[in-house]
């Protein structure tokens, strides 16, 4: 085959495929009576499999309660395992979109899996919703129009009201932080440190420990010798479990007060802990011990269905399902018109979520919440849960900063924590 012939045949191939590409697309667009297919990505194997399972539980619970039908169309949820691995997540997202023809994707737990899928949908415009992925820049500096954080939160959003509370109400002035050494940790600590520093507090030392640290005693000794007013702890999963236990065993509990990120005292962690977790103060949009009727109803139903208190994963995916349904109803089930559907999702004001308070998105696709300052207490039946102390209204991902100015500063990293050099 000479070169010209080759070029011709490749050209023919491309043209044929382009034509074929238009054909099925039109068919789908007119097939509005078929089911709405939702691709749910969750880590069912790998390091965060426990959380992934709760994601699926929460998401399905909503449809089991309210029926698998919206605006006259059936809802088909197709679950795929992302194996806690970004390459697998990407592969499964491809399969859901290209083979199963889903209308939208939702889910993923680890930031790197979410970022991988976000990069993929950036190219093809498939709506992708991320109730769990907290990576700041997905709704800030590197936002993608079809990636929306319904019912989720950005990492640096929640620690800010906590820093404010620690400075003003608890009177702390000198803090240290300890955190897992990866982006989610940098962003949460960054949020805490910047707000705490801007108010006039000082962060005297920051510790970054590798994921899956078995023995925290070297860090605990250093925290003790730094003599801070308070320690801010950003740990997730098994690290959170170990840290809370070792903190108590080391004798620091009750001596140096502990503030935590929302993941530290999430049900997925404290479910298996005893009184060593009691009294840890954290901040989050969700608080399973809240007395708001909507929250109580959700918690009771969830406990009945799965015989455990809902974690952030279950709650966020449940609210995410609710948000999707609200969007679908607004466009009368016509999810094929992506632009219209995404606009509707952005405009949703979720009044009946388990939070019992209206939730809406800011202009950048991240929800604005009334954030609870919460503490861990023992329930009469012996289980531990988070109960609210105070509510900070209308907390956006930009706190009190101007969004455009804020986004000009660098993303949080190990070396940049928003602390002004004096």
């Amino acid at each position, binding site marked *: 085959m000479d070169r010209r012939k080759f070029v011709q045949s490749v050209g023919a191939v491309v043209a044929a*495929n382009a034509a074929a590409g238009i054909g099925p697309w039109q068919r789908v667009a007119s097939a509005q009576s078929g089911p709405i297919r939702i691709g749910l990505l969750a880590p069912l194997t790998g390091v965060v499999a426990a959380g992934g399972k709760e994601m699926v539980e929460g998401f399905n619970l909503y449809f089991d309660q309210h029926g698998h039908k919206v605006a006259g169309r059936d809802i088909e949820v197709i679950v795929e395992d992302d194996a806690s691995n*970004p*390459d697998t997540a990407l592969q499964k997202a491809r399969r859901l*979109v290209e083979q199963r023809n889903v209308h939208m994707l939702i889910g993923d737990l680890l930031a790197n899996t979410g970022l991988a899928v976000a*990069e993929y949908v950036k190219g093809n415009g498939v709506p992708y919703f991320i109730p769990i992925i907290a990576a700041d820049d997905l709704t800030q500096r590197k936002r993608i129009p079809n990636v929306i954080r319904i019912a989720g939160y950005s990492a640096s959003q929640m620690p800010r009201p906590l820093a404010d509370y620690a400075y003003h109400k608890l009177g702390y002035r000198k803090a240290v932080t300890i955190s897992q050494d990866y982006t989610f940790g940098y962003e949460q600590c960054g949020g805490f440190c910047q707000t705490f520093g801007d108010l006039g507090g000082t962060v005297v030392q920051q510790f970054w420990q590798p994921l899956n640290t078995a023995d925290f005693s070297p860090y605990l000794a250093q925290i003790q010798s730094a003599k801070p007013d308070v320690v801010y702890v950003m740990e997730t999963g098994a690290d959170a479990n170990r840290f809370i236990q070792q903190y108590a065993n080391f004798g620091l509990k009750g001596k140096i007060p502990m503030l935590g990120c929302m993941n530290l005292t999430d049900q997925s962690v404290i479910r298996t802990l005893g009184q060593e977790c009691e009294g840890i103060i954290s901040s989050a949009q969700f608080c399973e011990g809240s007395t708001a009727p909507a929250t109580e109803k959700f918690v009771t139903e969830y406990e009945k269905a799965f015989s455990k208190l809902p974690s952030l994963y279950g709650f966020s995916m449940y609210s995410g399902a609710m948000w999707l349904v609200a969007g679908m109803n607004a466009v009368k089930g016509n999810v094929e018109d992506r632009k219209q559907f995404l606009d509707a999702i952005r405009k949703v004001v979720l009044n009946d979520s388990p939070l019992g308070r209206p939730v809406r998105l800011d202009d950048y696709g991240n929800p604005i919440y009334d954030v609870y300052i919460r503490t861990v207490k023992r329930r009469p039946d012996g289980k531990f849960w988070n109960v609210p102390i105070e509510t900070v209204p209308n907390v956006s991902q930009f706190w009190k900063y101007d969004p455009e100015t804020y986004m000009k500063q660098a993303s949080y990293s190990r*070396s940049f924590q928003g602390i002004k050099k004096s």
Partner: protein
Amino acid sequence: MSAAPPTEGEAGWEAVAPARRRTPAASRTRIVLAVIFAALLVAVPFVVPGYKTSLVIETLIFATLAMSIDLLAGYAGRVSLGHGAIFGIATYVVLYHVTTNAGSPWVGMLLGVVAATLAAVVFALLAIRTSGVYFLLLTLALGMIVWGMCLRWTSVTGGENGLRGTVAPAWLSPQPVFYFFILIVTSVMTWLMWRFARSPFGLTLQGIRESESRMRALGYNVPLHLFIAFTVSGFFAGLAGTLYAFFNSFVSPATVALAQSVEGLLMVIVGGVGTLFGGLVGAAVIIALENVVSFYTERWPMVLGLMFIVTMIFAPEGLLGWGRAVLARRASRKES
């Protein structure tokens, strides 16, 4: 290969050749099979467009990685657990060059291959003096160092979150074009590896695998041969890594992790160690199974594990080796 001493050549070939001589009927069957296989590969983007084509693309890329591992494992008898890292270094370099440096993907590809080959040189210098389980552990450790660097050197590698960005230029974005790009590159690479394995140099490697001391006694520079073999193998692994960057538009520490090396090695073992094309068979089987099985159960890693055990018990020479044995038996029956 300029390093091949003049003593090898015809004599070396003859020594092994009788085992490879085939009956005309058997070689005809092989040619027919090869033609059918090639036709199937060409037809892929037209028959199963979309997701399945992307799976074939992935298979071709990982087959190249598996074959590069087989060059060492099957021919030189050195099983490496560091090739995932070499592969991933190339992927990282391409993505870094294209996204952070905003450079050309082709330059990125070149840099990626160079970086991977250099990494292979370093690995080789440290590892060639060992063999057996020590070689395995040393390459494993070197791979873990690369993984650790990718995880912790956040300012360059993006840490846990990795690097993202479209690498392939716009004219490559229609899937059939991209498919044929990958098919052509991997075919050429496969041919080169096949030539390499069958060259006098490749035969010398087999000699080293069989008996290092005898080859040394015959006057061969064994460490030099192993060094070159490792470097060449790393070159091919790196090339596969650059293609992966084009395909995936994303890289994270998972790509350089031990699991990647192990998966490459499993592909070789399932396909058949020392068969070269077994890498392709193994890659196809594993990627297909991962996708089919995970569709039915979240316990798919267990099913894969069982499959490996079954393969090891009933076809220890790998699927391709097993297929060849079946064909050979049939051919000999026909003759008698």
